């Protein structure tokens, strides 16, 4: 009988990541609607303390999957372990945080189970007794509602920031631990993870900046960057960029803002010619005031902007520079 919702809690180097708690909050919310129990699974080696930490939440059990081959993440070992956990737990739905690690193994796991996996969902609801997930298409410009077909277990991952960590409900007493017996044959693990490292050390710490002027692909050409530099100068701001601008080498990588770059929260964030893909927004949506200038009125960046200007940045930025210098002169 497929019963529970199973949340896969991600840990790295003995630390549970934030998005896993978001997934746990989501699972608890959904479980209330569906009247189903919630279970969690943690995987690794010598991580009993993490299982205890998770067990403080309101859960029907925490499944602890330990094996020496789970100490360092590999897609092969994680999939083999989760297949065994899923066989034991027989969940109705497996919920995962949409982290880089989950991107790496969840499609493989779903395929091995003969199921489809709804990746990067932003929400769910019940519709005529059917569970419907929402995911974004076209980089956030369109939403799609999708339901599962076929038999459980179903698998879905949740986009960063779609649910709130502070909504996790604690239990009255610690949830019971289920120790899973995980067998993994060493030769089944085909890849070998080596050291983790950061590229060249950072010379700017954008996290400290009060004002950031950030530029996206709307700048069109490297030469046009001088306009943005002038604006940053006039505002006493640091300059940042979206990934394509850094990929092209127009700005150094260390000025990239987003999931694979820096996370910032300045008092003022000016987004110029940035569409607002989720991977960019996770890095800046905590800013106090967000101003977006974009020629596309439907650009997702406006969803987080306090002030929006729909128009051509090459017309607006020069006017802005003029206005700032007038103001300063006063």
């Amino acid at each position, binding site marked *: 009988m497929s019963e529970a919702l199973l949340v896969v809690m991600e840990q790295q180097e003995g630390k549970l990541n934030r998005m896993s708690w978001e997934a746990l909050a989501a699972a608890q919310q959904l479980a209330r609607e569906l009247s189903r129990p919630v279970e969690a699974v943690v995987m690794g080696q010598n991580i009993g303390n993490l299982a205890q930490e998770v067990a403080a939440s309101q859960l029907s059990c925490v499944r602890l999957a330990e094996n020496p081959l789970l100490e360092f993440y590999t*897609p092969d070992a994680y999939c083999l372990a989760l297949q065994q956990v899923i066989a034991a737990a027989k969940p109705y739905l497996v919920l995962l945080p949409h982290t*880089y690690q989950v*991107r*790496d193994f969840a*499609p493989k796991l*779903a*395929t091995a189970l003969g*199921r*489809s996996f709804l*990746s*990067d969902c932003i929400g769910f609801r019940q519709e005529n007794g059917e569970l419907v997930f929402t*995911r974004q*298409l*076209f980089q*956030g*410009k*369109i939403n*799609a*509602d*999708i*339901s*599962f077909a*076929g038999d459980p277990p179903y698998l879905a991952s949740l986009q960063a920031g779609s649910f709130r960590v502070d909504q996790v409900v604690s239990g009255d007493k610690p949830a019971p631990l289920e120790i899973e017996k995980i067998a993994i044959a060493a030769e089944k693990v085909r*890849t*070998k993870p*080596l*050291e*983790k*490292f*950061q590229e060249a050390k950072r010379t700017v710490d954008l996290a400290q900046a009060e004002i950031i002027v950030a530029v996206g*692909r709307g700048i069109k050409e490297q030469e046009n960057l001088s306009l943005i530099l002038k604006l940053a100068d006039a505002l006493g701001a640091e300059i940042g960029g979206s*990934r*394509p601008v850094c990929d092209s080498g127009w700005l150094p990588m260390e000025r990239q803002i987003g*999931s*694979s*770059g*820096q*996370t910032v929260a300045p*008092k*003022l964030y000016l987004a110029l010619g940035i*569409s607002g893909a989720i991977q960019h927004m996770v890095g800046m949506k905590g800013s*106090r*005031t967000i*101003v*977006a200038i974009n020629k596309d009125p439907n650009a997702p960046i*406006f*969803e987080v*902007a*306090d*002030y*929006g*200007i*729909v*128009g051509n940045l090459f017309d*607006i930025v020069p*006017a802005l520079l*003029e*206005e700032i210098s007038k*103001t*300063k002169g006063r």
Partner: protein
Amino acid sequence: MKILICLKQVPAKDSPPRIHGDSTWIREDDLSYEINEPDSYALEEALQLKEKHGGEVVVCSVGPARVQQVIREALAKGADRAIHIEDNSRSKADSLFTARIMAEAVRPESFDLILTGLQSDDLGLGQTGVILAELLGMPHATIIMEVQVPDGHLSGQFKVKRELEGGWFQWVEIPLPALLTIQSGINKPRYATLKGIKAARTKEIRHLTTEQLQLKPTDILEGQRLRRVYVPTKTKKTEFLEGSPQEVATKLVERLQREVRLL
């Protein structure tokens, strides 16, 4: 080294998607198309590997007749030949279907290395490559920012650099045959030359249909159902500043001074 690269054609970034009246899908005829951005980096990586180590680069694309445009572009940049799997039915559906089609088509060819983009700009599933690897029984690594081939022996372990969150990276050793999903920014994609465009005209494009692969959409376990698509409703109250550039500049500076107390 025999390299396969999976190229997806996606709506161009400046081509706004509009929804059909019945909310079932977008109006595909309204759109202009281009190569999925990470895929063009994957193609460049394949071409560079071939230039350094020899071998063959084969392009595979699943989709309607229009995808030949991206196939030609790849051939013009230097890919050796292509496989076009014509599919009008289900290209918008789940990645399992696309991956199944590609797996059937490429399995007999025994590629040493398969490269895909890490994610498509339109559907954003980030799954097709990993599923293809699983179907072909290959190891995989995702979000790759560098590929190192050990000197002399192509059959051995590759070293690949995976991007992790927040500016971290990790080296991973992976044996061939393998599948890698490539992240944007790994290299500088080249432009096609006039000579390349000419040469592309005589290169082989093999056409396959799902029927020839003996796959029918109905044979494949349907794991999900697309119910509707729609434009998301705004939840945040954005104050839009309107007027001429001068007017919006004045309004913005006013607000920055008054409310944000900067300047």
